[in-house]
């Protein structure tokens, strides 16, 4: 489509905004300088003809993989050519090149190289790092197996040390032990870091990491003893060759075990690692990325749905008047604006975890790890909370676009299928919630035994003071002011306290009934997940509220305050039962909350388009005909459809093959 002017509805929406979107973009990026640099990198990629290609929706899986590997190789070269080395800038570059999709070198760059850096000995680094840096070696990280994911101790692959040849013999002893899912394993990699149960001197020493060559350098053929391939089509991740790996008596030299920490000596003697606290840090870091990703994926879906809802006109609100924008319907606002508020909330939470992580990592080198357990517990829950919410939110955005949302041209199906695995990877969400719950129960026990706890759980300290009173702890009367975010934070705090206490009591009751601790835990796990969710919800409302004070521009602060209020009140409305049951709010107050949510929808309505513009997604990155910045939706849907593979010929071949013979016969 030739250059078209911006759709009149969108122009009107943008003119009516009460704040400057750029200022909000700066806040999301972390300052005007970061915005400038992001756009600079974006332009480097988008103006580069090497990174152009046909719409991926029209390509087969094989073709999409090919495009991805082509772009990835160019990307690695160009990153070095441009001297881009800052991790965040690399992330931007990669994200623009691959338009937010995964790519076959993800595991090489994101896991293989970093693992070499942190877990390889200097000798191993000499042997592997430079070849890997120069992509003569492409590696992946083979952890999950067909039979085991999040529960790592259950992995079954074995590495048995043979002192006579000074080699490890790797085996996949069962079908369930076949490595399954690692990205880049299927077709791309020639090496893998394999996690296996180490056996030496007849004893199992638990999971360790080994560098395993899997394909012949030069021919790329699998090595003898190695069975490797692609695991087949998935919901999304078409660009990624997630793979399987089966090893039959495959021998690697002793020196291929990553031995910076644990070691196996030539005679088979096992030397234990000093400490494994550092792995905590990596997990926190990766989970913080998922929180950020939840925010970004939901923001993209909101951008598409809100722009489209401003362009689409349907039905009538007032008899005799022209069809209104569908964004003017209360039900449409009720679907989309709480999600918009959620996207902003998650942005700020992601930034908080990242900052806290960087602050604490500073402490790790100086030896102060006291905050790490809490951050680790908190990020597990927040990873689950934000990815669940974003996952559902993306689907709501798609549904809000009606039939056209179902077309791949809307871009939302792609956002969804790319995002939804984050509910599973890096720790299955329910298991993550239960990790947070374990920390909450521990903190609760500390408080009941008279100790003070600190950080985000410090509200539990109040419980002991309430203990003398017979009623629910949280039933103390807080006067909740529904127009004041700070007061709502208190309400969320009370709810978390009540649900943590209730789960703890139920757990205790179960423990009194049966012998097995694990059984009692399992029988309380639904309550425990609810407690974790309430805790995370409180943290998010608290962080969003705290962010408001940092915003200097009054107009931006005003609109963010509206969003923060909507986020908090909508959450109360949706979970009204918790607040009612604990006596934090009365039925009359809940009715007021519901009413105020609807009033806020109308308040936010004029700024809705500007609020998604502030996310500042380039059209190429957004990949959506419905969400185009210029709003010229229908013309471009037609242009897009004409390129569909079914339209390659005027008369489809199946006419001659099937239809015509049938008509002749009947």
């Amino acid at each position: 489509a030739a250059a078209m002017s911006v759709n009149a509805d969108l122009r009107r929406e943008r003119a009516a905004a009460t704040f400057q979107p750029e200022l909000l973009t700066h806040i999301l990026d972390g300052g005007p300088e970061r915005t400038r640099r992001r756009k600079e990198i974006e332009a480097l990629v988008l103006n580069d003809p090497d990174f152009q290609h046909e719409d991926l929706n029209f390509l087969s899986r094989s073709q999409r993989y090919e495009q991805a590997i082509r772009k990835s190789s160019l990307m690695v070269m160009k990153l070095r050519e441009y001297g881009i080395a800052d991790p965040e800038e690399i992330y931007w570059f990669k994200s623009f090149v691959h338009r937010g999709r995964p790519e076959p070198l993800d595991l090489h760059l994101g896991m293989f190289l970093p693992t070499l850096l942190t877990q390889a000995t200097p000798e191993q680094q000499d042997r592997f790092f430079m070849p890997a840096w120069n992509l003569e070696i492409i590696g992946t990280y083979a952890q999950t197996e067909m039979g085991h994911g999040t529960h790592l101790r259950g992995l079954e692959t074995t590495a048995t040390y043979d002192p006579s040849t000074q080699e490890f013999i790797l085996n996949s002893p069962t079908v369930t032990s076949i490595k399954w899912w690692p990205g880049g394993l299927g077709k791309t990699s020639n090496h893998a870091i394999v996690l296996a149960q180490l056996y030496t001197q007849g004893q199992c020493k638990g999971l360790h990491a080994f560098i395993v060559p899997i394909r012949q350098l030069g021919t790329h053929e699998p090595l003898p003893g190695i069975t490797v391939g692609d695991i087949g089509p998935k919901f999304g991740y078409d660009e990624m060759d997630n793979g399987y790996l089966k090893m039959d008596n495959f021998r690697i030299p002793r020196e291929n075990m990553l031995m910076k920490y644990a070691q196996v000596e030539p005679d088979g003697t096992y030397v234990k690692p000093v400490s494994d606290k550092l792995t905590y840090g990596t997990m926190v870091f990766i989970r913080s990325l998922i929180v950020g990703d939840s925010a970004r994926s939901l923001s993209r879906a909101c951008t598409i749905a809100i722009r489209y809802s401003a362009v689409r006109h349907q039905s009538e609100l007032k008899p005799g008047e022209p069809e209104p924008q569908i964004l003017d319907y209360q039900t449409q606002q009720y679907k989309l604006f709480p999600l918009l508020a959620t996207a902003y909330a998650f942005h700020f939470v992601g930034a908080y975890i990242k900052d806290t992580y960087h602050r604490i990592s500073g402490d790790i080198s100086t030896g102060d790890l006291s905050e790490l357990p809490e951050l680790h517990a908190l990020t597990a829950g927040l990873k689950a909370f934000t990815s669940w919410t974003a996952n559902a939110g993306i689907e709501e955005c798609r549904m809000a676009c009606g039939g056209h949302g179902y077309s791949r041209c809307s871009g939302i199906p792609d956002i969804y299928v790319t995002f939804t695995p984050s509910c599973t990877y890096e720790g299955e969400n329910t298991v993550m919630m239960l990790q947070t719950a374990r920390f909450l129960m521990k903190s609760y026990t500390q408080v009941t035994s008279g100790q003070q706890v600190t950080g985000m759980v410090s509200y539990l300290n109040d419980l002991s003071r309430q203990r003398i009173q017979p009623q629910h702890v949280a039933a103390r009367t807080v006067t909740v002011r529904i127009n004041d975010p700070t007061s709502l934070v208190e309400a969320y705090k009370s709810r978390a306290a009540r649900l943590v206490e209730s789960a703890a009591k139920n757990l205790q009751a179960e423990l009194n009934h049966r012998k097995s601790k694990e059984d009692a835990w399992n029988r309380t796990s639904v309550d425990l997940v609810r407690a974790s969710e309430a805790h995370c919800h409180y943290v998010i409302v608290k962080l969003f509220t705290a962010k408001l004070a940092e915003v200097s521009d009054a107009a931006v602060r005003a609109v963010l305050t509206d969003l923060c209020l909507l986020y908090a009140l909508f959450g109360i409305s949706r979970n009204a039962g918790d607040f009612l049951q604990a006596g934090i709010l009365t039925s009359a107050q809940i009715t007021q909350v519901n009413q105020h949510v609807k009033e806020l929808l109308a308040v936010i309505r004029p700024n809705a388009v500007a609020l998604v513009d502030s996310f500042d997604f380039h059209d190429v990155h957004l990949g959506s005909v419905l969400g185009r910045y210029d709003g010229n939706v229908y013309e471009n849907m037609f242009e897009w459809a004409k390129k569909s593979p079914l339209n390659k010929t005027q008369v489809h071949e199946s006419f001659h093959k099937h239809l015509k013979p049938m008509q002749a016969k009947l």
Partner: protein
Amino acid sequence: SVNPDLASERQTASFSVEKLTALLDGGTEQTRIRRAVVEAIESDPVFSRENQYFQTQNERYEAAVRKAVHLQKKMHEMGWTENGPEYKYIYRALSGDVAFLLHRVFMRSISVLGSDKQVAKWIPLATQHKLIGSYAQTELGHGTYLQGLETTAVFDTATQEFILNTPKISAMKWWPGDMGRSATHTVVFAQLYIHGKCYGIHPFIVQIRSLQDHSLCPGITAGDIGPKMNFEHIDNGYLLLKNVRIPRENMLSKFCEVRPDGTYVRQGSQKINYFTMTTVRISLISDEVLTPLMKACAIAIRYSVVRRQSKLKPGEQEAKILDYQTQQEKLLPQLAAAYAFHFINDYLQELFNRGYREIQRKNFDMLPELHALSSGFKAVITQHCTAGVEICLRACGGHGYSLLSGLPSLYTKILASCIYEGENTILLLQTARFLIKCFMAASAGQPVPPSVTYLAAVKHGKCPAKNKLDFLNPDIYTEAYQHVAVRLTSNTAAKLQDLIQSGVKKHDAWNQCTVQLVQAAKAHCHYIAVKNFAETVEKLETKAGIQKIMKHLCDLFALHGIFSNTGAFLHDGYTSAAQMDMATASYLDLLAVIRKDAVPLVDAFDFTDKSLNSALGSYDGQVYQRLYEWAQKSPTNQMSPAYERYLKPLLHNTLSKL
């Protein structure tokens, strides 16, 4: 051989699986016929879905056309006819993976909207597949709101023709199935103009492709609308009309006719037509909505007893993931919902059959109620089941994400049902309009239809439950659901009146209450579903353990609804905080009870392995072997050109350039 973890689940069933299957089918004879149809279809290699997950859009389309053509032959061979008892099982046996579904809609619309003469002309042609029909209603710019359609049909008295046009881009027909590549004819809905006056939307038969070489007719631009989340086998199409002339006789004229001189005549009652449209919403529930949820439950629950992960007790074997309370809490409510909606579907079918008999006797009294129920339940069931399939998908962790699990395709297919045949929010608002009207009538002492008489009996009582066992009493929970439905409807009605009395215009007041109205409509349907489930259980035979297990599922369905929406039940103090704790305790206890029968309960759905087409959900539970075998068949495991083209240079020399 059957995986022992799955075999052991079947040994302890508390009821007869075969009897439950017969109950679901509506009798043993029905089960027998269904199995025969499934067997005939699945044993025929043309209908195989084996490679489906590896195929491109073009390949899927071609396979669907091939199957549609072959089906004609098969039906003839087997002696199946469109009116025979086998017919309704064919679609299920094919898992809907067949082309020309819109051909039937084309035929139905001619039968319903056409004059006797038109029926006599077109139906034989369509039956013999001399032509292939489609149904072109939705446009780029308009879907559920039909009055907004922009295609025009202008009557030209001089030539006795209608001139059809797509006046602007948003008026282009968009989405109709079978239209992108296959159809030769379609029923086009357009605004009728005679002598410059608009008469609203009317249906016209338009030929779009040549019957000789299938090329597009003059003035027609048509094609495929491109890739979607699913339905790759269907060529959803676009259609652009430019001065396309069709004879006057091609306007379907059972209800409205244009005379040669341009006189517009209305005839007969449209109500029967209206009833037909309502029926479609109900008819899709079974095959398009319940079947996918049942399949998803079967896959996820079987997989959850085969998959072992982590330990529940130290020193023991790793536990089946279905033994984790959190996993039960994800899956078992979906299973209960599948049964609840199966029974509500039976209820609606029966009601509609009764309605049909009344309408044939020219009694249209039931229409508003039928319309409200079909709209509301279409929305509630599609939404609930879609969410349920997604929960099943995510409950299978990483492997659920593989297409080979079967779950992604079930999900992407079922979710389309939330949109077609009426967007769900709009449908719920239609139900709400009926509720408000009936509430006002009931308050004024006027009679109202049977499904809403409860609105008149506004009680301000409290929930009488004294302990957690009381929440297993259907009277207790049904009453609670009723209370919530009445409260939401009456509060919204009061709010609407307040707004109007304070001077807000009626339509503005309506828009300001729509969020609440949607909630009221949902609560109404939820109440009826619970009540119907409880009443169905009452009537079941007590033999073979069927009634007992269905009672558990009914309780679970009801208590899950309370547990996930506690606010609605606590509001206004109908249920106290202490009672809510009891309800929750009962709910969680039930999970462990139903857990024991979970596998037999999905076995009773009686899906064959071919029909599930899932590496995770097959009857024998050989999950991992199958996943490995199927993956090896993936085309990506043939040598890819990517290695020679991109990987090799990358591995060998790219970076040395730097």
